[in-house]
């Protein structure tokens, strides 16, 4: 068991080196530019080769973790077609993980894999959101809230979190996204949607909403916004220009 443990540990190290090489764009540029990376490559290649040689040798001599897995899997009493299917999916996903690149339906599960450097954030954070007027009151259309079955105020079955995420973030800059939302709100008796500025001060914990249509237009054009600028309806821009 100790031997298998060492084999697994060595495999993890070798695969981490291999995947790092496979996932590095402009590999030769980095080799030429960074001494540390060059050293890493010079160490990695022998490690990967040694791992391959030892793994193949172990397999040929019928011992080691890889031989155990293959032998055990082949001896399992499960449908042959299922075995082929499982092997195919495992192999395809392994390739996807190795290259760090998905190809539907195979996936490297790289959600939130990007690395964001720590930075100095403003104490006040602002987001643009659609809002509407009802009974003289300004009401925010909180799309992410609408994706929650228990918190939704306007939408119900069929308007899933995925829908609201796409409408709120991914498609927010698209005119058609606004048209789709606007049509849905019209069905619910809301004639016009406007864009306002929703802010939170993390120091004081104060949350405010500014319905000023011109401030929102300016903020949309000048600020560096999460997921980019939002689509501002033409009638809002026009009214702002008139004012």
């Amino acid at each position, binding site marked *: 068991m100790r031997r298998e443990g060492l084999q697994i540990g060595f495999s993890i190290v070798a695969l981490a080196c291999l995947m790092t090489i496979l996932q590095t764009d402009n590999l030769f540029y980095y080799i030429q530019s960074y001494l540390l990376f060059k050293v890493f490559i010079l160490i990695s290649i022998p490690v990967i080769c040694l791992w391959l040689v030892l793994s193949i040798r172990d397999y040929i001599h019928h011992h080691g973790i890889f031989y155990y897995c293959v032998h055990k899997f082949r001896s399992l009493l*499960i449908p042959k077609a299922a075995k082929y299917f499982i092997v195919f999916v495992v192999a395809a996903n392994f390739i996807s*993980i190795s290259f760090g690149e998905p190809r*539907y339906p195979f996936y490297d599960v790289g959600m939130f894999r990007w690395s964001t450097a*720590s930075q100095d954030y403003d104490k006040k954070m602002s987001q643009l959101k659609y809002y509407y007027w009802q009974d003289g009151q300004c009401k925010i259309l909180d799309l992410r809230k609408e994706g929650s079955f228990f918190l939704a105020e306007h939408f119900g079955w069929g308007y899933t979190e995925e829908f609201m995420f796409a409408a709120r973030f991914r498609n927010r800059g698209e005119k058609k996204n606004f048209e789709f939302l606007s049509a849905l709100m019209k069905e619910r008796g809301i004639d016009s949607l406007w864009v306002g500025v929703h802010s939170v001060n993390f120091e004081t914990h104060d949350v405010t909403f500014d319905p000023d249509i011109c401030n929102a237009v300016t903020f949309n054009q000048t600020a560096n916004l999460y997921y980019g600028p939002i689509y501002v309806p033409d009638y809002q821009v026009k009214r702002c220009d008139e004012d």
Partner: protein
Amino acid sequence: MKINFREENILSRMEKPGSAHQLALFRIFLGLQIFYSSGGRLFQLSDYVAVPAETKNIFPDMLNQLIASIAVPHLQIITQVLSLFLLMGLWTKYILPFLSISFLFLFSFYYATNNAPIPWLYIWFPLVLLNFTRCSDVLSLDKYFRLRKLQINALSNVYRWPLEVVSGWFAYIYVAAGVAKLLPIYKGWPWMQGGTSQDIMYNRFLDSIYFYVFAKPLFDYTEYAWIFASLSVASIFIELSCILILFTHRFHTQIILLVLCMHLFLFLIGVMGFMQLAIILSIALIQPGFFNKLFKERETPVTQAV
């Protein structure tokens, strides 16, 4: 606690007897989830807005064009209807291949326009796998109408191996997610500094369930870098710890609890909810004995088809 890895690893577990009810429940919840996720108006939104996400798939262009032209509403309706059949366990053997294909095609359209993997990532493999299983032997209309012929076999693994494969799938999802954050190696350290966690919590605060419920931030998200670093390390620890599923069953309960806590936290801070999908896959991690007791299934023998 001495762990016998030879006896407790996932391949050895696949040889053991399982619970027909556990597999059937997995089928039912999977059918429910497919019905729910394929019924969303997201497909109409994607079709209308039509923003390409520059994603890649394994299908040829011609097929992708065909999928795009029939996804809304044809594939969507077909997937929903077939998922109801799966849920009820009616003609399961015959509908499963068609449901697998329609689901893969429909969510290919979803992925092509949204670049978000959530429902299909968790579900597609277990769904296709059910094609090779006897998932409608109990709790199904197939059984009610006697469309399945049963035989007693005490030592059969027919109900166990599919769920063990699904538990392997569970491990793959989380371990791959952990690996993706750490590789390439030079990116892993910066990730653990917590910048990504802080970026998400800071920018999504006003769009988070936490804000909708409590209206105020938990603390000053512009400070306390160590909290974000701890959260990042914890998430990697939880994700990588799922590899234990492959070696032993003894930590399944702890893994389920940790994963659900992680999903609950993500849900609160404004990341899309994966929780119900994780719960569905978690059915595979529960020991069959629990279902045997719950449904008063005979300990041995277990039903098996001719």
